């Protein structure tokens, strides 16, 4: 065998690594920028950089499996006649029919309903499959308003006004022609086969004062029955959360930069927004200052949630619930080694496949091709998702019990330490083994302070 470049003593450039070189070559060859799915692939400070301080002398742990540790959550109690009651704080994030096959949407509904949590529509309207299979369905209200209609609005259990997404704060949706099947085109009122770009701003309101009136209208149309969420991509999160609450949001969804997407420019995915870890404390601070944290307005965090530890850490930092996208797709069978040969044939590999925009997903999830989509059995995939959601919930409970909490929501920043200075500064918890929270000096005047949050 020929020795690898490294074995031959060749040194790879850290600046011009292989992915970078491939990107330049692709741009030069095609003249188009890379559009892809998945989320940011670069490493950023994340939940892995936090650890829990389990109970010992100064804290009592709870007995695993014997002593109760609850996981239920109520969302949207501030104004709605019918707030949502979920059994687990792990919800399914908005992913559009169009980006996903009808079978995948059905599987998400089945899996979520089995464990008592919610699913969310996406940019493209509500399908009968997902409404039928989702016990609790959140209906997204997006700038494009594709498929938006009052009948579906009334069928929804909650309404999520989407201002942005972590993968592309400030950007609109895209769905490339390969995925605009006749059904998708019909639902979106577009010609089949075109490359669709959705607007990045709402067509009939522009700022937070207008949003307040828009939320009022949505409440009036639905007779004040349904919780109204506002979803933002994480950027100026402290201010955005304050403005969302002022506009009347019952629930604020903050999606960090690692958050998944169906199709976005790579440059956008990797370079715009702040990590989930940095966003949650800003959101919590905003809610605390308004006196609404854990009393009135709920916070849902998303972007890179993979394990029960991530769930527990997000909640310890102050989220009331989390939402998952990419991990849910993987649980359904996305990137499965079962299709390794087919991923290779597409120029990718199982575990690396991110061409969700392309519509040729061998696993039948991010496609509108009827033959590929038929590969996904919604019942089996739904079971897998339910299994995975149970694991996430039990893992979060395991950690909560170890920290002596009888509800996962009782986890708090005081239970956490950070492994790196960056994570300590962003999450506002001390570097492990020290009392040091970088930047923990109260600033006077307006703006986010960097003081440590405690859930008073």
């Amino acid at each position: 065998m020929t020795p690898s470049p490294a074995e031959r003593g060749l040194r790879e450039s850290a600046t011009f690594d292989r992915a970078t070189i491939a990107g330049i070559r692709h741009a030069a060859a095609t003249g188009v920028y890379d559009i892809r799915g998945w989320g940011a692939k670069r490493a950023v400070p994340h939940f892995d950089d936090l650890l829990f301080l389990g109970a010992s002398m100064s804290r009592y742990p709870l007995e695993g499996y014997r002593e109760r540790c609850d996981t239920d959550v109520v969302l949207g109690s501030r104004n709605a006649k019918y707030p949502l009651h979920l059994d687990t704080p792990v919800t399914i994030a908005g992913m559009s029919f169009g980006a996903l096959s009808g079978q995948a949407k059905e599987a998400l509904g089945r899996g979520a309903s089995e464990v008592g949590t919610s699913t969310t529509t996406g940019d493209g309207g509500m399908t009968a499959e997902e409404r039928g299979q989702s016990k609790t369905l959140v209906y997204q209200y997006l700038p494009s308003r594709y498929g938006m209609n009052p009948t579906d609005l009334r069928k929804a259990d909650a309404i999520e006004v989407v201002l942005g997404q972590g993968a592309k704060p400030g950007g609109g949706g895209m769905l490339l022609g390969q995925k605009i099947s006749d059904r998708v085109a019909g639902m979106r009122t577009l010609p089949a086969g075109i490359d669709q770009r959705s607007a990045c701003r709402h067509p009939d309101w522009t700022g937070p004062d207008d949003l307040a009136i828009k939320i009022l209208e949505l409440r009036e149309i639905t007779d004040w029955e349904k919780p109204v969420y506002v979803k933002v991509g994480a950027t100026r999160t402290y201010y955005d959360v304050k403005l969302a609450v002022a506009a009347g949001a019952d629930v604020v969804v903050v999606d960090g930069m690692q958050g998944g997407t169906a199709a976005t420019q790579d440059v956008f995915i990797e370079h715009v927004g702040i990590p989930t870890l940095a966003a949650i404390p800003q959101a919590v601070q905003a809610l605390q200052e308004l006196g609404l944290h854990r009393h009135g307005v709920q916070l849902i965090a998303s972007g890179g949630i993979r394990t029960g530890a991530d769930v527990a850490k997000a909640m310890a930092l102050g989220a009331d619930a989390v939402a998952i996208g990419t991990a849910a797709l993987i649980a359904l069978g996305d990137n499965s080694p079962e299709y390794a040969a087919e991923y290779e044939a597409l120029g990718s590999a199982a575990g690396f496949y991110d061409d969700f925009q392309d519509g040729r997903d061998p696993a039948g999830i991010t496609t509108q091709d009827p033959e590929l989509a038929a590969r996904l059995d919604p019942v089996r995939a739904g079971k897998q998702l339910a299994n995975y959601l149970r694991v996430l919930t039990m893992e979060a409970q395991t950690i909560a019990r170890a920290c002596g909490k009888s509800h996962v929501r009782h986890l708090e920043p005081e239970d956490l330490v950070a492994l790196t200075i960056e994570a300590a500064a962003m999450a506002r918890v001390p570097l492990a083994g020290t009392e040091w929270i970088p930047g923990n000096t109260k600033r006077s005047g307006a703006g986010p302070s960097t003081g440590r949050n405690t859930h008073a």
Partner: protein
Amino acid sequence: MDPLTEAITVDLATQPVRALNAELHSPSSKAYEVLAPAGAHAVAAGIDSGISVDVRGHVGYYAAGMNDGGVVTIHGNAGTGVAENMMSGTVRVTGDASQSAGATAHGGLLVIDGSASMRCGISMKGVDIVVGGSVGPMSGFMAQAGRMVVCCDAGDGLGDSIYEARLYVRGAVGALGADCVEKPMRDEHRAELAELLAAAGLEHDVTEFRRYGSARRLYHFHSEQAGSY
């Protein structure tokens, strides 16, 4: 008189909008008259039956929002987003309308006797809009389907990034938006225009109008057109 046809009067000087809308969503009459709207928002939003509503005065944002079947007449001016996302029915504004009139509406007929401000018919998805006066800049932005008739002038950026909607303008048009072009008026266009004007109760010579629509050059991404996106 039949209680179902006798108009019920709701005075917004004494009743909240919320009570009005709750009544309109489970109507006990077929006709309503709304007094003293005083610029209130979301007046008559979410109607889902064929009732008629006459609003006497000016309304704020999103009047008759998401109307589905109702016949709503606003005897005055309307704020932002009148008849936004209408599905079916008719909404008429006897005065002027602010921004984003008929935004994203899927069906029905919106008539504005006066003029409409910016972004009239933005992202329209099948509605018919007839404006007796002029429309402001960026009207018909990303208009997907439906027809818009403007009896006077249209501001700059008309039909920017338009899809399959058809726009008819009688007066002057500012700079056209990206991918919007003038198209020939054929018999079928004159016929549909005559129908729309008749439906709106307006009289104009259809030969005075010009038609605009999509050049369909932005339907597929090409980097050479980067400047247009």
